[in-house]
């Protein structure tokens, strides 16, 4: 083939024209090859490509139903964990801890019973071990307590424990509880038929025949199970809730005691002894019993059962009562101890509070001792005043005697005394001025009282004067007119009967007689005028003799009185002192005529009498005014 010789540029141009698209692809391919070359040497790049593929492959394998991957992994994972456990236990624990705890929690939530079954053999044993240990320790403690206790029953219990071989602790626990038997059933073993029964009044079993059959069935069932499980012991106690069945198998009968708790050793022995006596007496009847309860033996056995049940119940009640008595004594002692404790606590609290109060109020710390019903204050304080203050604080809070043994340092005492000295001087000055002021006040008060006293005396005199006014007037009249024929000292009045002033049947005055009566009137009025303010009236009473008619006599007596009144009105003493307003006349006719030795002295009957009346109202008003003053 002939070779065409062309220049390079042309060739290149031609290439470009003809192979443009191919060249582009070639360039891209070259770039990709370079990239692949690079990536094939770069591990990170390879990992980023492969990892997702690997993950997907692994996931598919694990999810596939019959995949071998799970089997392979489980072997190796187990091996890895085992190796880690050998070489780096702590690290493995740390890694698994956050996973295992929630996993167990979740499993317990989802499958509680399964987890219990799984853990029971381990936890059950552990619990059993520790509970056993705890009970052992408890028993040891109780034994120690018993050893250290002192009582007659302790020694009785000791002897009993030695004889019976039972530990004192068990005996003590038995003593602490009393069980009540509330039913007895005697059941024929083969048939399960009830032969006889007895119950406490308040504990009757609703259908004892069915209960007997059921109890018999249970006993058979359990005995059968026990036999198959290579145990030679027969079941004696069945417990359900609060009820316990103590079953004694005796020949052809079961004798069952229904109790409220498991019987203790003593009670069991007692029940067994009783059951033994029943079997001795009725064993042949038990085997022959054919379900007929009308036979006499059934009645006898029932009576026997009731008697025994009541006997045991009474004993039990008595024991319970005794135990209750002990319980109450114990409670009482506990109560006393509690009260004693409370009392001590209260005293301590009060003492503490008191010390705190003392410190707050005086800044002094002291000690208070309670000795033989008195409190002793001990400690050093800054001053006597503080000592007194402390003593006062303590006094306020107790009725006990207080012995103040608080001491003061000499330096403090000196300062205190100086301060006291200044205080006393100040006090004296103050007291002096105070006393002077008080003295002045007192003086003023006394003078005031004296003045009031004087006034009172004056009032008293006035009072006396007024009260005695009547007797004064009388006394003065008596003095002035003593032995005067006109004056009647009994009535303190003037009477003209001795003077024969008037002529018969008229009011005419006899001239020569009036002078004497005038003198009497002047003396009389001269005294009365001084007491004018207390006199209500001066009465001139006119009289006649008994001759003549009544009316005429009254007229004559009236005229006689008026005549004398006119005379008096004209007397200077009356005019000067306005006595005329007090003058009154009264006519009495022949009333009160004067008789001498049964014969009327007509001259004497023809008369006037002059009297004065004291105004009581005026006296009273005057007294009131004085009292008011």
């Amino acid at each position: 083939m002939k070779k065409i010789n062309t220049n390079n540029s042309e060739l290149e141009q031609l290439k470009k024209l003809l192979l443009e698209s191919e060249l582009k692809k070639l360039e891209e391919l070259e770039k990709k090859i370079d990239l692949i070359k690079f990536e094939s040497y770069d591990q990170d790049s390879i990992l980023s490509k492969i990892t997702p593929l690997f993950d997907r492959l692994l996931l598919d394998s694990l999810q596939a139903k019959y995949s071998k991957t799970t089997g392979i992994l489980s072997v190796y994972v187990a091996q890895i964990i085992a190796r880690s456990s050998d070489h780096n236990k702590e690290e493995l624990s740390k890694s698994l801890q956050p996973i295992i705890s929630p996993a167990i929690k979740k499993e317990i939530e989802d499958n509680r019973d399964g987890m219990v079954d799984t853990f029971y053999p381990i936890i059950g044993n552990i619990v059993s071990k520790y509970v056993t240990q705890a009970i052992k320790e408890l028993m040891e403690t109780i034994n120690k307590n018993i050893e250290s206790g002192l009582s007659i029953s302790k020694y009785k219990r000791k002897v009993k424990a030695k004889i019976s071989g039972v530990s004192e602790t068990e005996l003590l626990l038995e003593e602490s509880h009393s069980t009540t038997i509330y039913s007895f059933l005697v059941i024929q073993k083969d048939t399960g038929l009830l032969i006889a029964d007895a119950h406490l009044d308040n504990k009757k079993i609703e259908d004892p025949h069915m209960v007997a059959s059921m109890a018999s069935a249970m006993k058979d069932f359990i005995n059968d199970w026990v036999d198959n499980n290579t145990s030679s012991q027969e079941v004696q106690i069945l417990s359900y809730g609060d009820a316990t069945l103590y079953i004694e198998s005796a020949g052809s009968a079961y004798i069952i005691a229904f109790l409220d708790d498991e019987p203790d050793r003593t009670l069991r022995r007692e029940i067994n002894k009783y059951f033994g006596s029943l079997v001795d007496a009725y064993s042949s009847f038990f085997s022959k019993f054919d379900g007929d309860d009308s036979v006499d033996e059934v009645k006898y056995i029932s009576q026997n059962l009731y008697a025994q049940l009541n006997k045991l119940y009474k004993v039990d009640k008595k024991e319970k009562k005794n135990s209750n008595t002990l319980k109450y004594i114990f409670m009482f002692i506990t109560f006393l101890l509690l009260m004693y404790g409370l009392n001590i606590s209260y005293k301590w609290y009060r003492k503490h509070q008191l010390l705190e109060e003392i410190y707050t109020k005086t800044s002094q710390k002291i000690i208070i001792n309670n000795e033989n019903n008195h409190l002793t204050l001990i400690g050093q304080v800054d001053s006597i005043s503080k000592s007194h203050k402390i003593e006062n604080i303590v006094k306020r809070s107790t009725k006990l005697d207080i012995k103040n043994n608080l001491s003061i340092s000499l330096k403090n005492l000196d300062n205190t005394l100086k301060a006291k000295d200044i205080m006393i001087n100040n006090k004296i000055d103050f007291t002096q001025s105070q006393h002077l002021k008080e003295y002045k006040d007192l003086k003023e008060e006394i003078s005031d009282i004296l003045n009031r006293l004087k006034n009172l005396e004056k009032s008293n005199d006035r009072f006396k004067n007024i009260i005695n006014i009547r007797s004064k007037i009388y006394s003065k009249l008596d003095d002035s007119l003593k032995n005067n024929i006109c004056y009647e000292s009994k009535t303190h009045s003037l009477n003209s009967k001795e003077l024969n002033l008037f002529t018969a049947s008229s009011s005419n005055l006899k001239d020569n007689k009036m002078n004497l009566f005038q003198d009497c009137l002047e003396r009389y009025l001269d005294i009365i005028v001084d007491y004018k303010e207390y006199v209500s009236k001066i009465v001139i009473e006119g009289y006649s003799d008994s001759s003549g008619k009544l009316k005429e006599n009254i007229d004559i007596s009236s005229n006689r009185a008026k005549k004398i009144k006119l005379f008096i009105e004209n007397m200077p003493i009356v005019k000067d002192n306005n006595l005329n307003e007090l003058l009154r006349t009264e006519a009495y006719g022949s009333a009160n005529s004067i008789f001498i030795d049964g014969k009327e002295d007509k001259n004497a009957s023809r008369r006037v009498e002059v009297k004065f009346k004291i105004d009581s109202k005026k006296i009273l008003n005057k007294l009131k005014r004085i009292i008011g003053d």
Partner: protein
Amino acid sequence: MIRKKILLLGDFSVGKTSLIRRYIDKTFDDSYLTTIGVKISEKELTIDDVDLKLLIWDVEGATKTKKIPLAYFKGASAAIFVADVSRKDTMSSIANHIETFLEVNPNANYVIAYNKSDLLSKEEEASLILPNNSFLSSAKKDENIEILFEILAKEIVTQYKEKGR
């Protein structure tokens, strides 16, 4: 009053408990049956002026894994064996139950109840040949239930009277 123990025996699910429920006065809760394999029920009757109390032990059927204590059989005066007419195996095992029972109580009476008769067609019922002392019963329809117990009760009373009491 005389009291007697009567057993109710048979395979599982033959209807013993349903049968007794139709008849009795008082019973313990069914849970006892599943717990210890026996349920006690009670029925009082008066036959020929004699008061009789039947204590009926409904004994659970034994299985390979669960055995029933033979002690339950002891002292029974009579028994009712129950089979399910719709299940031949239960009918054929009746003989075994009777044998076991008589071993323990050789002188006891018994009757057989072919129960669930309501499941049989008339033809099946007609073709069924029953041995002596056997009854077709239905707890569902309350058929021939009382007669099972009454036959046994009468027998018990007769024996009681024969003893001269």
